[in-house]
């Protein structure tokens, strides 16, 4: 079973994402901000990260850069999931190492389509 780390400061979003991902037979771990997410990754590297952009303490993009700079780890697949829905943000995410990008609002179909595109399903 693959593990997905859901990083979002909204409890509701984490809950909805968890429901969808568990429905796709993934194990879900949660974090409320980028720093917590890095800690989770240090404990145990997930297969995938579903990542919000704007969060207190550490943003999604800062987390992603820190994650991608880690050597000697198996890098997870990172899928942004954010209300930032303009081309500039998408480009910045990709050049920082994101594999896919979901613009909120999302639903189970979009998550499933994106996760299978990057080979997680």
């Amino acid at each position, binding site marked *: 079973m693959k593990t997905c780390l859901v990083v979002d400061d909204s409890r509701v979003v984490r809950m909805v994402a968890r429901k969808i991902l568990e429905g796709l037979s993934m194990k879900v771990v949660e974090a409320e901000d980028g720093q917590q997410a890095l800690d989770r990754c240090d404990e145990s590297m997930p297969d995938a990260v579903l990542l919000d952009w704007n969060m207190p303490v550490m943003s999604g993009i800062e987390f992603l850069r820190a994650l991608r700079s880690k050597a000697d780890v198996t890098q997870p697949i990172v899928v942004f999931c954010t209300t930032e829905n303009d081309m500039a943000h998408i480009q910045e995410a990709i050049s920082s190492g994101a594999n*896919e990008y979901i613009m909120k609002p*999302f639903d189970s179909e979009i998550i499933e389509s994106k996760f299978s595109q990057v080979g997680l399903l």
Partner: protein
Amino acid sequence: MNVSDFDMITRILRERSGLVLSKDKAYLIESRLNPVARKWQFKNFDDLASALRLGNDEKLLRDVTEAMTTNESFFFRDSKPFDQFKAIVLPHLINARASKRSFRIWSAACSSGQEPYSLAMILKEAGASLSGWRIEIVATDLSTEILQKAQEGAYSQFEVQRGLPIEYLVKYFKQEGERWMIDPSIRQMVTYKTFNLLEDPMALGTFDVVFLRNVLIYFDQPTKSQVLAGIARNMPADGFLYLGGAETVLGISDSFQLIPGQRGIYGLIPSGAAAAKSAVG
């Protein structure tokens, strides 16, 4: 809706688009035709039915037929067929058409354009290996309204998130407010035409690859057979036919068979299969 209205409307639909509706789909007729009744300012569904019964308003008949079609489509729908196109069909054509450097693709029920544009993006990505080639993508549909949307190439945020890889969104779309516009370089690769699959496709010319996906399911057996026979007649011996995930040629056509090891792609019997074998190697 009474039985005679149901019979009258389903007969219109069957004759004009091939759509077959069973009795349990009567609710679908009302829910999709109520908006048409409002648009035409009929008092209610019964008045629309009476007008249809007269059968003399071509525009109304067309509106009703189009309103009953299902237009749902996604970019790179089911992904696998498009992977196969890249891995098997395209290399075969590049090889087999090397002397004339041209081939033609038909997206035969293209709806809002996601299918032909997905193919256009794949061809664009193939870049150098196709430089100097003349490749035509002809995309047709019964519905002129949906073709207008296809031609415009404007998609909602929701539509560009179903099946379209993010790199392609960045590379081939431009954001305009709420809408995502496909790049003119991709749009210009596709030629749109109105075409009813119940007609003989001969006038469209021959096609090396036909995408006929998620439309046969709406037709009855004789109509399916007739459509496939027309396609077979207008295809070279090593052509490729794509059907939707829930569709098959089994029991419908003697002209096509599955290409060995490739679920969902069909070739003409027997040489189509032989050509594909040589493409697979």
